[in-house]
C-alpha cells in the first residue's frame, strides 16, 4: 500500500494536521524512485519545497523582478517591497523587535561567520575564550577556530553525555573563568536530535554578562522560536531547512550590538556615502547586506514562512514528535541497531548504526527501496568521535512525512539485514 493511498483513508494526524493536503502541496513527493514511491527522510539536510514557494519565486522572475533599493522604476519598487516584506515576515516569525535586527545572508554558515568576523573580530582579544559545545555542526566550530587563530583566543567545548545531553555543570564551570567573550550553541543538534536547554544556557551566560549566539538551522522548522523570550544576542538559521529556497540565510541580532559592530563585507548597498577619503556606512540592516542579494530567494523564504504559519507550528511539532516516537519504537525492534542520541528532549530525527553494516551501504540499499536518508558524519565529526564511529545513518522528518513512510524505512532496513547476513 502506498503512503498516499494510506492517507486517503486516514487523512488527519492525532495532532489534527490534514496530511493529504499538506503532501499535495509538494510536487516533488509525487514521484517514484527506482520504481518505488519516494520516501524522503533526509529533511535535516534539506527539506522539500511547497508549491507556494516555487510559485512565489517564479512569479518574482516572471512578473516584477528588478534590482532592489535603488531603482526609480516600478519593477524595482515592487521587488523592493516584496524583499522588505519578507524581512517583516522573518521578524514576525522570530518575534524580533524590529526589522533592523533581521540580516539576510547566504546561509546559517554565513550568518555565523558574520558574527565571528565582525563581532568576534572587534571584541575578542588574545587570552579570551569562546565557548561552544561538543555537538556543534562544523559551521559552528570552524568560524570560531579561525577567530581564535586570528586573535589568540581559546576555544572551550562543553561536553555531552552518551545520551546526547550537554553537561551543564561543565558549562557553568567554563563560564566561570572570567575570560569568556561569547557562547555559541546549537539549538537542535543535526547529528543527535537533542534539543538543548538554550533558554537556561542564555540565562547562565547573561548572569556573567556573556552574549550568546544560537545556531537555529535545525530548530526553526520544528520548534516555535521567540528571540525576545530567549533573549539571545544572535540567532542564525537557513531558508532551505524551513521549506524555502537554498542560498538564503538569516541572522537575527540585537540592534544595539549590530549597530556597534563593524561591517562584514564592503560593497554596494551597505554605504551611505563613498569618497576615496572616507566611507559612511548605511543604517541597519543594509550595513550587513553588501552586494545584490538573493532577491527571489528571500521572497521565496517569505512565502515559506507564510505557508508554515498557515499550519499551526505546535501541531507540526506534535506530528513530528509522534513520528519520531513511532520510528524509535520500530527501529529498536531491529537486532543490532543502535540509536545515537537518546536525550529526553529530542526532535525530528533518528541517527543510528546497524552492526556489521556501514551507514553508506545502508544508504545505498535504502535508496533502491525509494527511501532517501543521510549516511555520513553529518558535518559533526566530533560527535562521531564521541561514539567511536566513522559515520551514522540518519532518518529525519518533516511535516509531510507519514507513519507509512516510517514503515517503509523499517521494511527497507530489514532488507539491509537480509542482504548482509
Amino acid at each position: 500500500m502506498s503512503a498516499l493511498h494510506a492517507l486517503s483513508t486516514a487523512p488527519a494526524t492525532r495532532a489534527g494536521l490534514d496530511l493529504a493536503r499538506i503532501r499535495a502541496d509538494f510536487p516533488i513527493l509525487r514521484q517514484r524512485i527506482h520504481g518505488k514511491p519516494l520516501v524522503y527522510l533526509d529533511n535535516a539536510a534539506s527539506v522539500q519545497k511547497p508549491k507556494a514557494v516555487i510559485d512565489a519565486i517564479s512569479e518574482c522572475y516572471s512578473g516584477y523582478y528588478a534590482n532592489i533599493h535603488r531603482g526609480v522604476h516600478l519593477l524595482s519598487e515592487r521587488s523592493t517591497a516584496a524583499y522588505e516584506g519578507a524581512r517583516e515576515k522573518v521578524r514576525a516569525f522570530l518575534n524580533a523587535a524590529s526589522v533592523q535586527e533581521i540580516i539576510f545572508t547566504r546561509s546559517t554558515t554565513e550568518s555565523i561567520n558574520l558574527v565571528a568576523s565582525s563581532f568576534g573580530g572587534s571584541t575578542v582579544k588574545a587570552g579570551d575564550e569562546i565557548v561552544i559545545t561538543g555537538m556543534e555542526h562544523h559551521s559552528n566550530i570552524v568560524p570560531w577556530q579561525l577567530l581564535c587563530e586570528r586573535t589568540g583566543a581559546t576555544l572551550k567545548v562543553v561536553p555531552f553525555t552518551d545520551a546526547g545531553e550537554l553537561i551543564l555543570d561543565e558549562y557553568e564551570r567554563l563560564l566561570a573563568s572570567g575570560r569568556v567573550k561569547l557562547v555559541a550553541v546549537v539549538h537542535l543538534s543535526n547529528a543527535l536530535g537533542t534539543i538543548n536547554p538554550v533558554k537556561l544556557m542564555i540565562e547562565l551566560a547573561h548572569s556573567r554578562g556573556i552574549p550568546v549566539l544560537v545556531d537555529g538551522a535545525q530548530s526553526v522548522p520544528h520548534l516555535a522560536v521567540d528571540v525576545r523570550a530567549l533573549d539571545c544576542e544572535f540567532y542564525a538559521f537557513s531558508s532551505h531547512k524551513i521549506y524555502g529556497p537554498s542560498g538564503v540565510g538569516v541572522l537575527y541580532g540585537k540592534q544595539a550590538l549590530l549597530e556597534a559592530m563593524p561591517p562584514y563585507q564592503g560593497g554596494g548597498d551597505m554605504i551611505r556615502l563613498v569618497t576615496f577619503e572616507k566611507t559612511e556606512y548605511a543604517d541597519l540592516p543594509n550595513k550587513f547586506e553588501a552586494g545584490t542579494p538573493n532577491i527571489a530567494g528571500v521572497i521565496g523564504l517569505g512565502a515559506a514562512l507564510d505557508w508554515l504559519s498557515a499550519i499551526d507550528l505546535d501541531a507540526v511539532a506534535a506530528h513530528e514528535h509522534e513520528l519520531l516516537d513511532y520510528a524509535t519504537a520500530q527501529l529498536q525492534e531491529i537486532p543490532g541497531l543502535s540509536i545515537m542520541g537518546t536525550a529526553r528532549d529530542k526532535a525530528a530525527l533518528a541517527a543510528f548504526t546497524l552492526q556489521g553494516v556501514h551507514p553508506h551501504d545502508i544508504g545505498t540499499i535504502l535508496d533502491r527501496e525509494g527511501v532517501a536518508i543521510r549516511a555520513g558524519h553529518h558535518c559533526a565529526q566530533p560527535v562521531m568521535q564521541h561514539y567511536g564511529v566513522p559515520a551514522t545513518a540518519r532518518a529525519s522528518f518533516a511535516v509531510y512525512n507519514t507513519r507509512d513512510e516510517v514503515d517503509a524505512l523499517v521494511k527497507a532496513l530489514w532488507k539491509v539485514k537480509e542482504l548482509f547476513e
Partner: protein
Amino acid sequence: MNDLRDLYQEVILDHNKRPRNFRIIPQPTHRADGVNPLCGDRISVFLDIEDGVIKDIAFQGAGCAISSASASLMTEALRGKPVNEVEHLFEAFHNVVTTDCECPKGLGKLSVLAGVRDYPSRVKCATLAWHAVRAALEKRKEPVATE
C-alpha cells in the same frame, strides 16, 4: 533486490566480512593513508617492495562494504606483481567501475566490483584503497583524499 545483488555480490559481501590481508606490516618499505571525506572512512595501506616487486601488501581501516572489499581484493591482486604494473591495473580497474566497458580478463576477481558503475556516488569507495597505494608508491606524506 536483483539490482542490489549486482552491487553487493557474494564475493564482495565475503571480503567485507572477512577481509584478506587485513593487518599491519610492521616495517613496510611504503605506506600511505587514504580518506574519503564524504563518509569519513580512513584506510592505511602497507607495502613491502623488493627489487621492484610487491612482496607483501596489507591494509587496515574502517569503511563501507564496497571500500573494504575493494581493498581486500586489491591486496590479493597486487601481491607478487611488479610495481610497474600497478598503474596499468588501476587504469583498467577504474575503467571497469566508471564506464560500460567489457571487463578485461587480466582483472580477475576485481571485476566483481563492476556493479559500482551504476552507483556513481560509490566509485570513490571502490577506488579509495587504490588511491592510497598510488600515494604510497609516490611516497606522499599527506593522506590522499578521494575528492
